[in-house]
């Protein structure tokens, strides 16, 4: 029956049989090993021949039972004693059924005794099996206790170190135990907390906002409630946030309340939300249009300004090519960004709205890896330049007015001379006319006398006429009258020219570009300015033959005017009233695919520290009223719009040289921009 039990559990058991040596006692005389074989093949039986080797084997650990032949004598006793200190039981096989021998064995520590004899095969397996069961049960219980201990330690470690406040509550919501984090969080000793009611310990605003009563009620009823977040004000300002959860622990209705401090998470989340809102606000409200375009040119994002400038709502999905109907796709700036990641900053181009209107825009493009990491997308920021263009025109015009104001002084002087002599001549001619009228009256008298036929009267009249002619110096008056008329006519012609030049200069040309000879432009500008500076400046012209340039001639004249005025002022600054003359040299020439116009002066020169700023708007070193500080920046803008450049060289005390380079062929977009 015992064997069947072993077979049933399919357990291997190890039994150690300690026998006296064959030489001394004839070996297994009692038939212990055969008796144990009845336990079946799962019983692995090993035979040892001394107490020492038996103990050594037991200490290896996997022995379930030791069966000792009592004939080992003294060794049997010491072996049993030694086995007491191990979990392995020892069963003694006695040579006879005497009580004394059995008692002795029990005293020595035997777990049981069996008497050798014919019945051994029946008694020993049962006894062995019983002992093995016992030892197995004990071993199992030990393992369970160990596991429990480990679990308790783990539990304890978790409770002690978890960054959440834990409290176990009874049905009356009294605290049974709290962890150190709970104590820390709510400023109470862990011991002092025990036995207090939860609502005495937690801040009222946290109880209220976290719906703690509700959570505990739901947990008490065995329901799982969704986590709540409660807030409490902190003494020093600020808010702490707790994630609150509760679970019923057992049938007694004990509850576990977990409070996790999520203040940091909340403030981070808030910060992220703020940042998102901030970015969103910027993007939604910025006065620049923002577009994201995928690799196929389809819009994936557009802000309201983009909708406004592009004149369409619900832009996502539409192709940007729609706004460039006449431009080949590969020429569209964004396409270059999409194709090869080209970056643009402040490029100018023109878009066509669905109603055909053209809008000049300034655009910056940058590549953007698309969301799936494949291909290129582009982000584009652009502004409507219509208004800026308008302002630019205004600034340009007002700068020109300032130049005209400066010119006025020179021109007035230039007009004063002819006006002066014309005025004097007119008055003089009036006097001549008075003389000539008297002469005419004399002539009429003579005519009358001739008609009367009286010789005496005729002679008197004739003498009177001669006298008068002599008195008024008639022949001189007649010839000088003619001279005065001629000179006055010439004077008025001079005034007419000056006025004509001025009118040409003040005209606003922002229409179509036209072909112009820059030598003529430069020369006519120099002629106007010349009147102002001729007392202090020698003008040298060195013009080479130039191809005609498609440009805005008036705008370029404005540039030349600014450069000439600056040159003149630099010379005036240097020579003052000394009577010395400065020199302005104008030269034009071809260079590469463009034209160079150079204005050099022998003036005061520009200090190195201001040289870098002279093209800045409103930068001026001149006195108030002399200039707006827009001259060179306006010039720079005009030249830039012509696709050209201005370079300056200057040496203090030696003079300056401004070199304007204008390309003969310009990029398509710039021309388009100019006409928008």
């Amino acid at each position, binding site marked *: 029956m015992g064997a069947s039990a072993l077979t049933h559990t399919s357990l291997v058991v190890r039994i150690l049989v300690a026998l006296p040596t064959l030489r001394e006692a004839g070996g297994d005389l009692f038939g212990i090993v055969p008796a144990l074989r009845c336990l079946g093949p799962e019983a692995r039986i090993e035979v040892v021949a001394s107490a020492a080797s038996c103990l050594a084997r037991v200490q290896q650990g996997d022995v379930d039972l030791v069966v000792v032949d009592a004939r080992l004598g003294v060794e049997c006793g010491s072996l049993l004693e030694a086995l007491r200190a191990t979990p392995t039981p020892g069963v003694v096989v006695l040579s006879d059924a005497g009580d004394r021998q059995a008692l002795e064995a029990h005293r020595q520590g035997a777990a049981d005794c069996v008497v050798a004899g014919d019945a051994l095969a029946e008694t020993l397996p049962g006894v062995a099996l019983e002992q093995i069961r016992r030892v197995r049960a004990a071993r199992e219980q030990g393992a369970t206790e160990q596991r429990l201990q480990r679990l308790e330690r783990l539990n304890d470690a978790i409770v002690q170190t978890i960054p959440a406040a834990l409290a176990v509550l009874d049905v009356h919501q009294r605290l049974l135990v709290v962890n150190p984090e709970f104590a820390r969080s709510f400023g109470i000793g862990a011991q002092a907390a025990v036995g207090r009611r939860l609502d005495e310990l937690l801040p009222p605003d946290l109880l209220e906002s976290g719906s703690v009563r509700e959570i505990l009620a739901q947990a008490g009823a065995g329901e799982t409630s969704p986590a709540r977040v409660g807030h409490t004000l902190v003494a020093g300002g600020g808010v702490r946030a707790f994630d609150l959860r509760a679970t019923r622990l057992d049938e007694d209705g004990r509850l576990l309340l977990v409070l996790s401090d999520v203040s940091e998470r909340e403030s981070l989340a808030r910060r992220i939300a703020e940042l998102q809102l901030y970015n969103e606000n910027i993007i939604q409200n910025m006065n620049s249009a923002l577009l994201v375009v995928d690799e196929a040119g389809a819009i994936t994002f557009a802000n309201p300004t983009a909708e406004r400038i592009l004149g369409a709502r619900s832009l996502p999905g539409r192709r940007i090519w729609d706004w460039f109907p006449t431009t080949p796709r590969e020429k569209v700036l964004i396409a270059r960004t999409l194709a090869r990641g080209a970056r643009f900053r402040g490029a100018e181009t023109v878009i066509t709205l669905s109603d055909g209107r053209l809008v000049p825009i300034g655009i910056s493009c940058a590549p953007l890896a698309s969301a799936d990491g494949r291909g290129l997308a582009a982000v584009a920021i652009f502004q409507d330049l219509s208004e800026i263009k308008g302002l630019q025109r205004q600034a340009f015009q007002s700068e020109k007015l300032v130049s005209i104001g400066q010119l006025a002084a020179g021109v007035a*002087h230039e007009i*004063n*001379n*002819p*006006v002066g002599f014309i005025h*004097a001549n007119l008055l003089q001619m009036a006097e001549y006319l008075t003389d000539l009228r008297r002469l005419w009256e004399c002539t009429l008298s003579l005519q009358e006398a001739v008609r009367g036929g009286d010789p005496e009267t005729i002679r008197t009249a004739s003498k009177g006429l001669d006298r008068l002619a002599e008195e008024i110096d008639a022949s001189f008056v007649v010839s000088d009258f003619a001279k*005065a008329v001629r000179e006055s006519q*010439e004077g008025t012609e001079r005034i007419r020219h000056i006025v004509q030049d001025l009118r040409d200069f003040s005209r606003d040309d922002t229409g179509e570009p036209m072909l112009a000879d820059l030598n003529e432009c430069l020369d006519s500008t120099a002629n106007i300015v010349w009147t102002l500076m001729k*007392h202090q400046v020698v003008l040298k012209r060195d013009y080479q033959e130039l191809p005609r340039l498609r440009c805005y001639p008036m705008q370029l004249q404005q540039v030349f005017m600014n450069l000439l005025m600056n040159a003149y002022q630099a010379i005036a600054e240097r020579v003052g009233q000394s009577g010395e*003359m400065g020199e302005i040299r104008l030269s034009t020439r071809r260079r590469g695919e463009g034209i160079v116009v150079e204005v050099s002066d022998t003036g005061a020169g520009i200090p190195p520290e201001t040289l870098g700023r002279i093209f800045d708007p409103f930068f001026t070193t001149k006195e108030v009223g002399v200039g707006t500080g827009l001259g060179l920046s306006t010039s720079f803008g005009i030249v830039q719009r012509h696709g050209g450049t201005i370079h300056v060289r200057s040496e203090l005390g030696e003079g300056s040289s401004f070199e304007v380079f204008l390309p003969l062929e310009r990029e398509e977009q710039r021309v388009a921009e100019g006409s928008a």
Partner: protein
Amino acid sequence: MSEVRPVLLIVDDEVRILTALRRVLRSERYEILTAETPAEALRLLDERRVDLILSDHKMPGMSGLELLARASSKQPSAGRILITGWTEEVPPEELAAVGVRALLPKPWDNEDLKATLRAALASDAALRLG
């Protein structure tokens, strides 16, 4: 007998002005000398005694005021009159320093001009007599 005519030197870089002034002053019995540049005027002052100098102010190389200042060291007795356009401003103290007797505008009124010249001559004569 032939009257001793006062000698008037007119300086202006604008020849038409010289012609017009000569024309206007034809009836005034002056002996009129003209110079188109300050340098020429200074040369004439070395050669001829002059009673009155009438000079434009804004001229290349040298201003009228400077010319009159130099003239006063050559011929202190010559009266000095400056003609200026309205765009140029000459500080009164500079005029006084050079002893400019009168300032005429450009364009001028012919009668004013004649009266100014006469007055200048008369007061110079009075000064010389006194």
